[in-house]
């Protein structure tokens, strides 16, 4: 029998690609110099310590070499990247005040509607600055802080100073040093001891300006026994020039606290997405990552969980869809640094049309981390023979009282399954679509409903008969 192939369409990007005119009130020139870094700091009217921190980070950036592993970053030329684009508006507390075109962008992305229906607070960043921020009054009364980072530095300077880039120091790698030098925007969340934020908070990051970089910093502190679900969304319209995203997320999960961090990333395919995310978890605390990577030209993103308190727990659920022209190099890192810690990683990837999906992970068990458990499971689906799928996990174990398991599978849609569904009266196209949807189901069900719907829209897997 002639082998037949399924043709699966690229994700439909329609509404994400609608671009606005590039309007700004202030924009630094492209490239990276101490003058540019100082200009950003001056424009933000920052305290001296932050200005010094930026300059020190720039110094580190210039000293660190490019990574010797992972996808090629040759295309990225920092001399052509504009690191700071201040939109032509200030921070608003009401959508009515946000300029029409910017508001319409977020309307199309469904943010104000989601805010009305299912969110306890929203932040919206446009290029380098946050243009909208809101939080429900009852949370404010419980002492929850949810604001943009610039406001946080002004109003909660002591807290920011204590935590800012302490978990991810600028010396960590080249692009986090870059972040330290030119970061702008992002969200700050503080949940006081014992407070449970039952409804999620969401920050959405939109990069509109061509050839620009977005470097938002997200800092979340969940105090003892507190609870939070935070959602991050990102997208950009497509341009012919390279855009850069080098954000940084620092999460502090204290004793008995719980934090779920969900991301749907749908950058345009001219984006270099070199993002850094890290959580540190104290005794009996929990971090849960839910991550969907669909967009960007090149992604390098490996959320890291440092389990430093006894009984701390990390979970990572991720799906990656790499289509034509994309190299999505993603995964998860867990450091078991205390006894009785546990981690569970579940990664799925789909490659098609010449796309490359890479799972890159690391599990490190420190010498003192006895009685720790870790399970890693990676599954890759290849939809054609011009794509690539690589699995590169590393386990590094320094204690014998452990229970560690890793498994990975690679393959394509089983012909038996398609045949079975077809004997039940389902068309071949629908059968294939069902199987692909079933493959990502474990991730879809971890997402809030409207995000699961968004993901389903994203994976609008249109079957167009068979080719080849």
């Amino acid at each position, binding site marked *: 029998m002639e082998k037949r192939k399924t043709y699966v369409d690229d994700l439909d990007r329609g509404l994400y690609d609608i671009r606005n005119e590039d309007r700004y009130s202030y924009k630094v020139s492209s490239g990276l110099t101490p003058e540019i870094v100082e200009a950003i700091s001056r424009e933000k009217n920052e305290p001296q310590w932050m200005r010094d921190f930026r300059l020190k980070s720039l110094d580190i950036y210039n000293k660190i070499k490019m990574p010797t592993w992972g996808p090629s970053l040759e295309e990225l030329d920092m001399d052509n990247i504009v690191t700071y684009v201040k939109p032509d508006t200030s921070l608003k507390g009401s959508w009515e005040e946000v300029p029409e075109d910017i508001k319409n962008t977020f309307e199309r992305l469904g943010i104000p509607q989601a805010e009305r229906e299912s969110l306890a607070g929203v932040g919206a960043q446009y290029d380098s600055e946050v243009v909208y921020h809101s939080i429900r009054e009852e949370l404010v009364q419980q002492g929850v802080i949810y604001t943009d980072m610039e406001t946080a530095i002004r109003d909660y300077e002591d807290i920011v100073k204590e935590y800012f880039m302490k978990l991810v120091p600028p010396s960590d790698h080249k692009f986090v040093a870059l972040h330290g030098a030119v970061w702008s925007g992002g969200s700050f969340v503080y949940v006081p001891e014992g407070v449970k934020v039952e409804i999620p908070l969401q920050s959405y990051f939109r990069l509109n300006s061509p050839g620009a970089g977005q470097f938002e910093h997200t800092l979340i502190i969940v105090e003892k026994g507190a609870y939070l679900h935070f959602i991050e969304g990102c997208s950009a319209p497509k341009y012919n020039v390279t855009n850069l995203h080098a954000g940084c997320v620092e999460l502090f999960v204290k004793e008995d606290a719980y934090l779920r961090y969900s991301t749907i990333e749908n950058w345009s395919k001219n984006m270099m997405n070199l993002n850094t995310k890290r959580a540190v978890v104290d005794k009996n605390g929990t971090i849960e990552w839910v991550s969907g990577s669909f967009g960007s030209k090149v992604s390098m993103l490996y959320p890291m969980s440092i389990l430093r308190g006894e009984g701390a727990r990390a979970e990572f659920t991720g799906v990656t869809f790499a289509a034509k022209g994309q190299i999505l190099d993603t995964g998860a890192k867990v450091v078991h640094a205390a006894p009785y810690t546990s981690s569970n990683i579940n990664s799925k990837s789909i490659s098609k049309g010449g796309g490359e999906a890479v799972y890159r992970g690391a599990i490190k068990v420190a010498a003192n981390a*006895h009685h720790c458990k870790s399970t890693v499971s990676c599954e890759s689906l290849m*939809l054609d023979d011009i794509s690539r799928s690589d699995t590169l996990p590393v386990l*590094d174990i320094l204690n014998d009282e452990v229970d560690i398991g890793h498994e990975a599978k690679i393959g394509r849609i089983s012909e038996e399954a398609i045949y079975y569904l077809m004997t039940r009266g389902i068309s071949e196209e629908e059968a294939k679509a069902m199987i692909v949807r079933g493959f990502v189901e474990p991730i879809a069900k971890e997402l809030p409903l409207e995000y699961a719907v968004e993901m389903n829209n994203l994976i609008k897997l249109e079957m167009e008969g068979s080719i080849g």
Partner: protein
Amino acid sequence: MSEILNNLNNIPVRTWRWLGVNETNIKDKMPEIKDYNLNPLIENNGEGYKVFDIKKNNSSIRFFDNKRDIGIADPLTDLVTKNFNSGYLIEVDENKKVQEPILIDYKMDTNNSVLVDNNFIIAGENSEITVVIKYSSNKGDEAFHSGLTKLYAKKGAVINLVKVQLMEDDGIHLDAIAAATEEEAEINCVLIELGAKSTVTSCKNDLLSKNSKANIYSIYLGDKDRSIDINYVINHYGRKSESNIKTNGALMDKSSKIFRGTIDFKRGSKESKGMEEEYAVLLSSGIRNRSVPLLLCAEDDVQGQHAASTGKIDENKLFYLMSRGFSELEAKKLIIESSFNPITEKVPIEELREEISEYIRRRMLNV
């Protein structure tokens, strides 16, 4: 020769440097390479095959020079190719199935403490051969072994290569196997890597054509401050090619190990299957156990799987054996040995199997 060997056992795709698994560097200085005058194999051209001492018949290795790269481009193979002081070429005639295994017994002693062996096995079409290569040394001799074994299985041929390394604790063992497997051919490597304070081994097999098969079965045993560094790579080029990697090991005391295992489905390797399993039993808290199971894929119609698991020795089994009167050490030895058994029983010479068992016992009981 006193240069230091760097950049061995590279993984095909690099990852984070801080994990220290991208490559390995030998800390010990290379000894001066002197003559090796022992006779590990009586040159006998048996029924269906020929053996050449390559020190005398250097030209006969030309076969391998003409083949496209079946070597490993690293400083170790370079060292062996330029400085070998021993080695054999074994050529098996077409359609001949050699029943008796051929044993090459490389001993190292005070006057022959440095061995650099360069071996070649060519199996003609539809032939079959089993070669056992053993490395051993004496206590106090600070033996150094580095070697390269190239294998080529022509259409329909079967090569079984068994390596048994039982060197003493002061020895160094650097070993590489590079293989190529033609259509319908099969190469099985059984690697019993037990001794030497520092072991760096690699095994690479290119499955060139339709229905070619590669199997690697191996065991290791880490104790004291022993370090074990492993790199297996199977490249699937041919359609319907099949591979299996199965490694069982145990680590105790302050020993450390890196296991790298790569299954690489190249474009064109449709309908191929690759399976990799690694199990490590941990017996003490001072160990370091690193695993890097890579699965690389550029084809959709393939099945690839890898699994790695690491954990403490099964407490229930231990308790049961101790309740039957075994000491804790003996019970552990029994459990470890039973996990090695499926692999050690593939060693085709009974005396050698017994020697391996005795060696493991000696090591486990530290006598």
